[in-house]
């Protein structure tokens, strides 16, 4: 346990020393909320989205953005770089299993996601009066399911790419369509019916829907939960099967 804590602490330090990644994970989602919230019309209730305000929607979208940054952008690049540079190979010669390092990297990602989400929710609540999730347990469940489902995808990418650079590139290519369906450019509520249907089956779309519903008081709907568990199972299994240590 002491070793795992030390490994995790090391991963956190290393993460904070990558200013660009740390900015996009820890600061950017909150910045997005602040920028959108400073547009006056986004703070007015709108009939198009069921009487909610645009800023209300963007808080949950910013949370999904955090998770996408962590799981799709950071994790695959870091892990693939570790393999490419022989970090995992060196670890394999010590009493500590490289699996522990993998766990520490995931723990670091989880901690970063929680910190950034807390910041998003706090700024939303304090500055723009966005109510905290009314179904808090449901929000936590939706958060964890989305984190697990997206990390499984990130791990799978890390498992199959040959280098950190490729990991980064594939992460970026995945990021934009996945975030599109999470409503980053057009919130789900104003998407055409057909796009909403598609979004329901994407990991970030399902995650955003579940988080957004928890904000207004519901438990994650069965479809979103099933989709996220499905991504976790399929990509988690594929990642475990195909992960190479060196």
């Amino acid at each position: 346990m002491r070793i795992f804590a030390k490994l995790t602490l090391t991963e956190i330090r290393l993460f904070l020393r990558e200013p660009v990644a740390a900015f996009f994970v820890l600061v950017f989602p909150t910045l997005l909320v602040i920028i959108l919230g400073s547009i006056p019309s986004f703070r007015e209730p709108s009939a198009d989205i069921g009487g909610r305000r645009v800023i209300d929607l963007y808080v949950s979208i910013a949370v999904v953005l955090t998770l996408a940054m962590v799981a799709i952008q950071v994790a695959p690049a870091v892990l693939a770089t570790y393999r490419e540079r022989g970090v995992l190979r060196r670890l394999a010669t010590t009493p500590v299993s490289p699996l522990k390092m993998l766990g520490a990297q995931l723990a670091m990602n989880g901690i970063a996601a929680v910190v950034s989400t807390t910041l998003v929710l706090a700024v939303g609540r304090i500055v723009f009066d966005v109510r905290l999730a009314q179904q808090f347990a449901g929000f936590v469940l939706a958060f964890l399911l989305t984190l697990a489902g997206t990390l499984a995808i990130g791990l799978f990418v890390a498992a199959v790419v040959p280098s950190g650079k490729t990991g980064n590139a594939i992460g970026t290519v995945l990021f934009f369509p996945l975030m599109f369906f999470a409503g980053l450019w057009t919130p789900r509520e104003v998407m055409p019916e057909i796009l909403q249907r598609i979004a329901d089956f994407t990991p970030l779309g399902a995650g955003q829907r579940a988080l957004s519903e928890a904000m207004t008081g519901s438990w994650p709907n069965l479809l979103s939960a099933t989709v996220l568990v499905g991504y976790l199972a399929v990509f988690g299994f594929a990642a475990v099967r195909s992960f190479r240590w060196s």
Partner: protein
Amino acid sequence: MTVIEVQNLRKAYGDTVAVQDVSFTVESGEIFGILGPNGAGKTTTVESIAGLRSADSGTIRVLGRDPSDTSLRYEVGVQLQESGLPDRLTVREALDLYATFYPEPADWRALTRELGLGEKLATAYGKLSGGQKQRLSIALALIGSPKIAILDELTTGLDPQARRDTWDLIESVRDSGVTIVLVTHFMAEAERLCDRIAVIDHGRVVALDTPAGLIAGLDTEQRIRFRPSAPVDDALLTARPEVREVIRHGSQIEVVGTGNLLHAVTSVLAVNEIIAADLRIEQASLDDAFVQLTGRSTKE
């Protein structure tokens, strides 16, 4: 006491046979060298001993256990090629982290001083020179106070001074009772450090002996050059069976021969009360032994 036993090791990657048939034993407290040209199977052999690869056939015992036994990781320190650290991790953090992996770690401050890394503790791994990375890698292999240290291409990338310092360190590590397996293609290193050497070529052990034994096994000629204090008759020298040829270079004489040539020449000179000035012996080196055993130069 035997600490490592390798018997008929064989390992192939697809159609490429990296190790054909390798057997040797390493005794406690010795520095055992594994020498061979590139692609001979040295690294695959030590990676199998370190438990990073599983043999296709043959057996390996390390401290009496199978290399896959993870408890060995506490007792075997490994420095491998192509292994690294995250670029932004500092030297101090790396040592401090790796020290927590072991129940009784070595004093890493002393280790870094001996390796000349004392000034670099706050430097990030990515900013170290190749030689400094190499020295950190050695420090990490020794940080767990191992009983056996496996060092692959120990001094590659080091400048001559750092190389000599590293050799001193390795000798002091051995003096503290650690058995060392050294992979190298660097002859001076093998000659200076190794008690015994296995020469591996094309995945097989082609010779296993002390450095002196490997050189003595050569049937190459030796050359002795000197300036005699008085004229010498060639016949006196060529009468000895060790001497094949006598060549004159102005006032110098060059004697070519085999076996204990020096003794033959000096005894002829002594009997005739002649003193040899500027005496030089061109002896066969481990390099020559290596070329004869593998048919290849080490400088390739």
